[in-house]
């Protein structure tokens, strides 16, 4: 059942499960059962990661603000977010008059579905990926932008002026920063020559894309972090909800679980951005490998790939929390200035630079094939 060389890896388990279903069921039923199991696993992971993130964020925020954070429920307050989850599940859903009912009820689902769809495409570890599309990067970009429809609908259908302003801000913000996020990922697609996540990770075995593409890759990385952070609607880019201006922005009129959906999606989007950045720039779940150092590489492989993945993603999330809890909120015109006057032009030039570097063989892997080559 377990690989001797990688005791904590789940590859063998996944493969044996697959083999079991394939051998005992017809191909159609085997696929169906596996699909359902994967769906359940993803939803469970979605909820669990959200719970963990909420706890982590509260603790880290408390650390930044010289507070204690949750510390009453369980040791160090670890079950606080579970209690909060139960609370939000049993909370009354307040029905609001004079709303556009259909759109109002639909909006949270758009947000959460977009978030789950992109969550499903993330490679969490070796063989821990639901679907390995050959256009993975493109797919993630496409489905994650569905979320903005939900936010716009929420603001529009609530029949509340604060919500409306929040939604309009969010529309402008999302569409702007989508461009930057997309372009910076495309820079790496140019570098690695693939959109498939598994190939992207395999290509970074000896040299992360961040280093392989050196200057333009680093610029793309920073831009992706900024624009990704902006896309998650979190401070300093939390204009759509801007609680000190718009009370709660687009989700002002939502309560109970419907609000919970927005809340959950916000946290998971933060994770998804970190996960994509990890996969595309930092070698994904691939442990640190150095060409020729086989013993070292073997030791690195003892640490399971999903630990590597979550470790790297956590570092990026910590960065995002750090920014969130240090900076004041941007104003809408400053926000759009930043995107259209700085990030986007830099990004466009950056892609061009990357193309030149790849074509003229100036990536690290090309310059030092003995150390960084595939």
């Amino acid at each position, binding site marked *: 059942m377990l690989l001797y060389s990688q005791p904590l890896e789940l590859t063998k388990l996944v493969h044996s499960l697959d083999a079991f279903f394939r051998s005992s069921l017809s191909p159609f039923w085997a696929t169906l059962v596996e699909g359902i199991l994967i769906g359940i696993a993803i939803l469970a992971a979605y909820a669990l990661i959200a719970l963990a993130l909420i706890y982590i964020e509260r603790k880290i*925020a408390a650390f*930044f*603000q*010289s*507070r204690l954070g949750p510390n009453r429920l369980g040791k160090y307050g670890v079950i606080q977010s579970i209690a909060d989850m139960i609370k939000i599940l049993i909370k009354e859903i307040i029905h609001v008059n004079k709303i556009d009912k259909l759109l109002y009820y639909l909006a949270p689902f758009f947000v959460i579905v977009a978030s789950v769809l992109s969550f499903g495409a993330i490679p969490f570890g070796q063989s821990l990926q639901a679907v390995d599309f050959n256009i993975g990067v493109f797919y993630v970009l496409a489905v994650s932008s569905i979320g903005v429809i939900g936010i716009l609908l929420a603001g529009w259908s609530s029949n509340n*002026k*604060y919500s409306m*302003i929040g939604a309009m*801000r969010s529309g402008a913000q999302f569409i702007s920063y989508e461009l930057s996020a997309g372009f910076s990922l495309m820079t790496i697609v140019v570098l690695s020559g693939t959109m498939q996540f598994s190939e992207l990770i395999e290509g970074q075995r000896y040299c992360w894309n961040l280093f392989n593409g050196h200057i333009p890759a680093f610029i793309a990385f920073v831009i992706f972090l900024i624009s990704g952070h902006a896309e998650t609607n979190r*401070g*300093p880019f*939390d*204009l759509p909800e*801007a*609680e*000190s*201006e718009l*009370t709660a922005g687009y989700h002002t009129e939502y309560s109970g679980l419907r609000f919970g959906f927005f809340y959950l999606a916000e946290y998971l989007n933060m994770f998804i951005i970190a996960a994509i950045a990890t996969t595309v720039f930092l070698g994904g779940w691939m442990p640190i490998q150095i060409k020729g150092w086989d013993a070292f590489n073997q030791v690195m492989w003892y640490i399971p790939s999903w630990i590597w993945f979550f470790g790297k993603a956590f570092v990026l999330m910590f960065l995002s929390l750090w920014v969130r*809890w*240090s*900076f*004041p*909120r*941007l*104003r*809408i*015109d*400053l926000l759009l200035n930043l995107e259209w006057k700085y990030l986007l032009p830099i990004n466009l030039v950056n892609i061009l630079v990357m193309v030149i570097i790849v074509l003229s063989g100036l990536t690290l892997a090309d310059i030092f094939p003995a150390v960084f080559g595939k």
Partner: protein
Amino acid sequence: MTRFLYFNEMKDIKQIIQDIASDALIEEKQKLTVTVEPKQARPLIEGLRNNKELPFDYLISLIGMDWGEKLGVIYQLSSSIDLTHEVVIITATTDRENPLLYSVSDLYETAHLNEREVYALFGIRFINNPDMRRFLLDDDWKGFPFRKDYDENPDLNPVNVISKEIVDIAPQIIETADGNLVEREVPIFGENDYIINIGPQHPSTHGVMHFRTSLDGEIVKKIDVHSGYIHRGIEKLCESMTYPQILHFTDRLDYLSANINRHGLCMCIEKAGEIEVPQRAEYIRTIMDELQRVSSHLLAWACQCNDLGATTAFVYGMREREHVLDIFDKTCGGRLIINQNVVGGVMFDIYKDFQKDVKAFIPYMRQRLVEYDEFFSHNAIALGRMVNIGHLTKEQAISYGVTGPAGRASGWSCDVRKYKPYSLYDKVEFKEIIRTEGDSYARYLNRLDEIEQSLRIIEQLIDNIPEGDICGKVKAVLRLPEGQFFQSVETGKGEFGVFIESHGDKSPYRVKLRSPSLSAVSVMPLTARGALLSDLIGIAGSLDFVIPDIDR
């Protein structure tokens, strides 16, 4: 020499007054007091306002009065050049049915809201004020509560449980060119304006403030200030209580400057009653005032950062403030409202380690000021949200009566502690922080710098507290002599004024409390016009108003 000069100037002012209003009654009371007929009041004020050498361009307070057979107004004027000069102008009309006076709102912008307040409370309407809605009270309130013959029967004004539509129509009484009075109604907003209610329940209005705001996209077109959601009629309540009983009311105005407010009221009573205050009490009062100012500015800083979305900075401000509150707590048990000042001195002596605690706090606070500077004051986003935002010129600040750190950020030297020193402020050295930029950032920096100055003042006093009594001898039943008494103090928000008219009784005939926050709120429509919605919140944070202080 200076006294002589002062005397000469006073003579000049008297001459000016006599030139404009020849039959005015000029008296040298606590202030130079001029009583004139309603018709002459406006020309007289205009003349003083436009006086070349010493323009009386700062309307400290506009006080509505009911003297029984007469209804009137007391104008307390001062000069922005030198706050030591004050003139009090009294005018009254015998018409109780339809009292009309001429508005001075075109001379002093601050008169707008004050005249509306006088209308709500006394029923005096002002000719030529463009907006004669009632301030603080509902438009359908029956009776005028501050009149002495007001019917307090609760059935007349039952507690309202139905949501009322807000009517955005302003009545006016305008005097036409040929001298006729025309009453008319003007809509406040355009027909197709997108109006959004910021407040009364809103996280960033610092209380139950209500800005009706018309927006063009996200750009603020017009703001209409509604207030009075926590109007308690404190001034009216004072009229039925004895002097020692009314002290605690001032704490409930600007609760962040509770001790300073109360200091002002105590001093007003002490001056009127000629009560001696022991030196030890003066020291304790001054130190406590400055500690209170530090805590008020810290909270203002924290809230301004929070309004800009920096929650961590907010917690930092609260963290330091806690140290001040701990000192208050140990001194007299109170944290926010500390009940320290009483007529004649202070209620509680300082505790044994008071000096040690305060001396430990000073270097700690200085270190934190450096941290604030590094953490927030030069943050690129913060600068983008504050520099050149919410501009207020010196002229506007004076006309609207915006004092305190906000007024000084516009280049107006208006520190009461410098011009009309009270307690020990003439014995200590400190710098009046003045900036000329007039934007949110200048107001922001001013508060941080004033914290440093307050620490300086405390440093000079803390080691020299003399031994002795903490409270002078005060009669059990305190009666003030007949007269009108004024006292100003510098709170964290600006000039807080106390006016008491005594008719020789145990309780005051009329008390008026000048609110620095009211002026700060009155400039909101001006400073936020054309700004973005986010900046409206940021500007409100930088002006630092406290709602109970406005509503009273």
